[in-house]
């Protein structure tokens, strides 16, 4: 779809977990597309939530308290919706939106979308929540899409993961960083059962394991870096850039099958590709439509993995060729901007009358002629499009931290003044 108007979108982050950075990438991409984005920072509430678990009370009381707390957080989201008046509430998996709040949003005509960036077989809670979202985006196809349709989630779409080209990019690393983060073979991820067993076959290589949840595995302890602490996304990009071969083995809780051949493609696949880093990734049912055989090197079992590690370590030119093509494909098709555009187009296609037209004058039309130039610079500094509405400019200014510049304060003042005297209610 073309000509999507500038929208107001509230991105609701989860309190923690793997979908948290994805939510931030989504917000960033939506801003780049020219939309006014507000983010509900659920992680700020997480410390209070975890404090409940230290109470040493009976389990039924703890459950009651946790539920009550989540209702408060969910009410905070509802309050934010009432104030911001978004065209769309985009929630990431595990976002603290209660069904009660979702019902209320539906009653109030506020469109909601969930990007469920999880394995539906592992995180089965979707059954209880999917029908309450207007749009439900997932990273798997059959049979998940049919099952969603079966429980009344009519507007479901396949939306594979992606990477952020502004963040996941080739880096010039210092010699110290190369020593710290580099190795012939590396893996970054959590210590799932299949990986724990699989990696025992790789210990003859110059191998570094990064990430958390590897504790209790004596066989791998020597190879786990930094005591298995959580790796920040900034550090991850350095590891990707510094490693000759980035191993990307999708997770499984079943230790019986080390290379599962499952369907969804994990975020690491896109992030490594976007970084221009070479990866060896296990074959996935949905991978061929995302990357070609000359873009990503794959393996289907452990024997092939070991063989290919040896091969590619010995052939840096081939590694470079794969990495270059993968990056080109990722840049062309697998950025979060493309995903967000697809999600919004799908939403517009499926939801009648969405987005509701707004009667908002452009900021440049509302502000006096003599400050046009200054305003244009201000819009650029706020990463807002030149045709942003006055109301969205006001919202962006209100959201700024700290002391505002005089022109910014004057614009907020004008907004209030228009509300009082010029028959235009102040922006929400």
């Amino acid at each position, binding site marked *: 779809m073309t000509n999507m108007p500038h929208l107001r979108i509230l991105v609701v982050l989860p309190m923690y977990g793997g979908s948290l950075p994805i939510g931030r990438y989504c917000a960033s991409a939506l801003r780049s597309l020219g939309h006014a984005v507000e983010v509900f920072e659920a992680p700020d509430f997480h410390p209070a939530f975890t404090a409940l678990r230290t109470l040493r009370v009976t389990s039924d009381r703890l459950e009651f308290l946790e539920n009550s707390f989540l209702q408060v957080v969910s009410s905070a989201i509802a309050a934010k919706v009432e104030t911001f008046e978004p065209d769309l509430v985009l929630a990431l998996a595990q976002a603290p939106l209660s069904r009660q709040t979702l019902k209320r949003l539906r009653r109030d005509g506020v469109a909601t979308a969930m990007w469920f960036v999880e394995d539906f077989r592992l995180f089965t809670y979707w059954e209880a929540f999917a029908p309450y979202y207007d749009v439900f985006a997932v990273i798997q196809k059959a049979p998940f899409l049919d099952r969603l349709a079966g429980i009344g989630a009519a507007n479901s779409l396949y939306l594979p993961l992606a990477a952020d080209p502004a963040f996941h990019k080739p880096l010039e690393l210092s010699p110290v960083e190369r020593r710290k983060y580099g190795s012939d073979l590396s893996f970054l991820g959590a210590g799932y059962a299949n990986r724990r067993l699989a990696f025992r076959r790789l210990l003859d290589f110059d191998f570094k394991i990064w990430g958390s949840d590897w504790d209790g595995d004596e066989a791998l302890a020597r190879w786990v870096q930094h005591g298995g602490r959580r790796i920040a996304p900034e550090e991850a990009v350095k590891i990707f850039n510094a490693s000759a071969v980035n191993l990307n083995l999708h997770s499984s809780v079943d230790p019986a099958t080390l290379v599962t051949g499952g369907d969804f493609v994990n975020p690491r696949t896109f992030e490594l590709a976007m970084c221009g880093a070479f990866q060896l990734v296990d074959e996935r049912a949905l991978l061929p439509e995302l990357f070609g055989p000359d873009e990503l090197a794959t393996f289907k079992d452990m024997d092939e993995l070991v063989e290919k590690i040896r091969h590619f370590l010995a052939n840096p030119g081939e590694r470079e060729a794969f990495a270059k093509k993968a990056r080109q494909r990722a840049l062309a098709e697998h950025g979060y901007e493309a995903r967000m555009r697809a999600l919004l187009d799908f939403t517009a296609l499926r939801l009648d009358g969405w987005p509701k037209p707004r009667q908002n004058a452009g900021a440049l039309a509302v502000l006096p002629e003599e400050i046009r130039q200054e305003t244009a610079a201000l819009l650029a500094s706020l990463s807002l499009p030149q045709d942003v509405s006055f109301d969205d400019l006001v919202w962006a200014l209100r959201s700024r931290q700290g002391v505002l510049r005089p022109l910014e*304060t004057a614009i907020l003042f004008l907004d209030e003044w228009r*509300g009082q*005297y010029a028959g235009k209610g102040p922006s929400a």
Partner: protein
Amino acid sequence: MKRVLVIQLARFGDLIQTKRTMSSLAAEPCEVHLAADHALAGLARRLYPYASVHGVAAHGLPDPGGADAASAIIKNARVFAELAALSFDEVYCLNFSGLSLAMTTAFDPDSVRGYKLVSGQIHKDPWARLAFRWAKKRRLAGLNLTDFWAALAPSRVPPESVNPKASPRGGGVGVALAGRNARRALPPEVLASIVQTVFASGKAQRLVLLGAKGQEGLARDLSRRLKPGIMEKTSNLCGRTSLDALCDEVSNLDLLLTPDTGVMHLAAHFGVPVTAFFLSSAWCHETGPYGEGHVVWQSVVESAPCLESAPCPDGLRCLESFASPAFLPVLAGARGKEPPPGLAGFRTDFDALGVVCRPFAGTDPVMGRRLAFRAFAARRLGLEIADGPAATPDLAATLDLETDWTLDQARRPDPFETV
């Protein structure tokens, strides 16, 4: 010396009611700056000669929908830049209005007292939050706005020092017509009898009608209803005085008859005696004249004070007692006469909290509750009202929330500080 800014962008009357705040800050001592509506900047300089006044285009711009008005508003950016460059130690935002809140974004949020907008979130300090709660029970509460604002200052000058004691100045009787809210003013047919009664019972030789251009018709209507002997002594200055000339005129009066108006506060500022008529949404315990020796005739019917923006739920019953012939002898000072039911006379005085309206005629049905409230509010500010009621847990329970108990301490140096 500490440098402070008071943001008072509201109207004429509010500007004058900021006096105790301004005096208290100046007495700290502080270098005091005041941001006021550009149309009132001259008056502000006259009221507060010790302060630097900064005019902000906020109200009264012609053609609000036009480009010139928007341009004038945006030009405020220059004023905001000047103010930001002054690096104030403290900024006092007195009004919970969108304009004032927007203006606070130009300053370090930690320096702002009262109300502020921080990253899109409005914050009220604990004292202001408490006020919003008692404002829901206006009839039972009662703290003069002048004292409410002054309580935001780190310390306060004594209330007696704010305005001169009321005493006649020899310039005749003034009548302030209407105000912005017509329902709060007596209609000409009621006002005429009152004016004649007061004028006849005194020795003044001059009657002056005061008001804005919009009240000219009202003034003519009133004049027509006055007896010829009084009409001859009447000057109609409605719409004919600048703010400076108004100040000169009011400052010389013997007495001002008025509803709840800005002119009333101006008279109190000069120590000119006020006899005020409060009805509808006007409540003398909140916005009565500041100083000693003023009189307010306050409607105390059950529906008073009402909500300005809502239609009258009571058929304007509060007006009836002002229109009653029984009121006039009381007004003339006849001994042994009581005002009609639903009306009470109050005289202004002071207690530890500030100005207080004490009943001298009629029945004040909520005096006990109000005194309990004042004692409560005084304790909140670390004050004790002499002979005031003791602690009242029931009242406190309706005004203090669990969050106050667990999160806030109103008497902290920085009321926004939470840890």
